[in-house]
């Protein structure tokens, strides 16, 4: 498995991670090696095997459809925001 730089670029955009040119080269190499190492998995016969998502399959529960955080104020929630304006989070202009 060889990962070309343009594939790395595409994946990086899907993950919304900006990479430098040097990183694109290095991660292309790393990804190629790691995916090659993973080829071993394909040898395992998984015919008629169901994928496993949770080791405690019978245990999943739902919590009440209610607020998890009863005591957190608006100010507290905004306190970690990197940019804010009054009672709002701010982001770059989305609509032209």
């Amino acid at each position, binding site marked *: 498995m060889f*990962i070309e730089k343009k594939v*790395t670029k595409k*994946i*990086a*955009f*899907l*993950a*919304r*991670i*900006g*990479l*430098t040119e040097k*990183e694109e080269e290095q*991660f292309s190499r*790393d*990804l190629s*090696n*790691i*995916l090659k*190492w*993973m080829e*071993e*998995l*394909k*040898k*395992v016969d*998984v015919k008629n*095997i*169901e*994928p*496993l*998502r*949770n*080791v*405690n399959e019978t*245990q*999943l*529960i*739902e*919590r*009440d459809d209610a607020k*998890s*955080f009863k005591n*957190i104020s608006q100010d*507290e*929630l905004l*306190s*970690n*925001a*990197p*940019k804010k304006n009054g009672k709002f*989070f701010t*982001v*770059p*202009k*989305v609509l032209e």
Partner: protein
Amino acid sequence: MNDIIKLTLVETVDLIKTKQVSVKEIIETYIKRLQETEKFNMLSEKNYAEALNLADKADSKKTEDFRPLEGIPIAVKDIFCTKGNKTTASSKMLNNFVAPYESTVTRNLKEAGSIVLCKTNMDEFAMGSASDTCFQGEVINPWTDDFSKPLTPGGSSGGSAAVIAASGACFSLGTDTGGSIRQPASFCGNVGLKPTYGRCSRFGIIAFASSLDQAGPITKTVEDAAYALTHMASWDKNDSTSVNVPLPNLLKNIKEGVRGLKVGIPKEYIIDEMSDEIQKLLQTGSTWLKEQGAEILEISLPNTKVALPCYYIIAPAEASANLARYDGVKFGFRADGPFRDLNDMYCKTRGEGFGKEVKRRLLIGTYVLSSGYYDAYYIHAQKVRRKIVEDFNDAFKIVDVILSPTAPSDAFVLGEKKEDPINMYLNDVFTVPSSLAGLPAISVPAGLSNNNKPLGLQLISSKFTEDTLLKTAYALEKAASFSFTPSLDK
């Protein structure tokens, strides 16, 4: 009282309960110790002022009002949200994040009376096996003799393991996704316990791979691990994967011995990467248990070899979903503008905010989940995961406990494996299979390597049988009588 820091958790609980020493004296002694050991870069946040206040409060109480962990100083991996403290997961992305709420595990421990003394450094977002991907700098193993070649404490819970090796807290908290409690415990000469998946709530723990992440204690002794877990575990409606299975009494039968117990050694765990000293250690461990009346059996876990690549598909895939939340909008780091548009802001923020190993894993995770590869990688890995679980199910029809080394080596020099991700991933070869199966497992210090560094042995038991696991670990600990400590002040 200089001997305070040498005591185990259980001994300290007793000392406090009988008011032989004040909580304030205990807290002050440990703070002093942490100040003396700052060169190991173990701490991300110091909570000393609050800890001293809480000590005064505890001392003003009557002994009959004491809770089970009253006044016990603990160190918390910086992946647990602790209300009002910085909680960074050792990432630039969260470097200024102050948790507005409390994780369930730390809430349980605080309600039991324990006092959070500090938060500890770790691999960024728990991705690593050497505590060398930490934004605040690498953590140094207190067993280091030559500071020109500092040793890794292991990872990702390296700061938490190092703190216990340096006697900086009564016990510490770690999280284990593929070995992140057990491997550092092995490298630092501590006991590290990963409970059954679902035992401890993941609520308020910064998520890495949700189907694998599990909290556990790092302690000086097996008995301490039993005591600590008893007050950490709970069924929690805020974590849909936490389980409503009562925790067995972990202390009641811990000393009853292993006579008649069946202990399996998987033949697939004898691998090429394993050095002679590790093989010898495994042999010694099995002799110790045999001498105490256990029956040793060779077992087979046929899919062991594919557990690592399986893990390195599933964990990064889940991470790529979990870490999508770091977008520079509601909390955490945002890159400096100006930005062309919103995507430009996301890309710059995440490109600058995440370190190299995190980016590498997010790219792997995104790749294996991307259109055209989802079935071939991700679904295929989930099917292999079921086969690994079935291997263990078959094994536990024959044996009660499985014995193996914890890690393929002792602590290595920091930076040694940093540029070779696959070589670094091999650290987890013995710990990942039980993680994939959600099984409880523990690392017990068992001896010293040729370099005079700690080596651990791992025990694994079937789901929800932490009592059997700890009983066996206690027998192993007794036989090993590991009493070495790092000579810190050299």
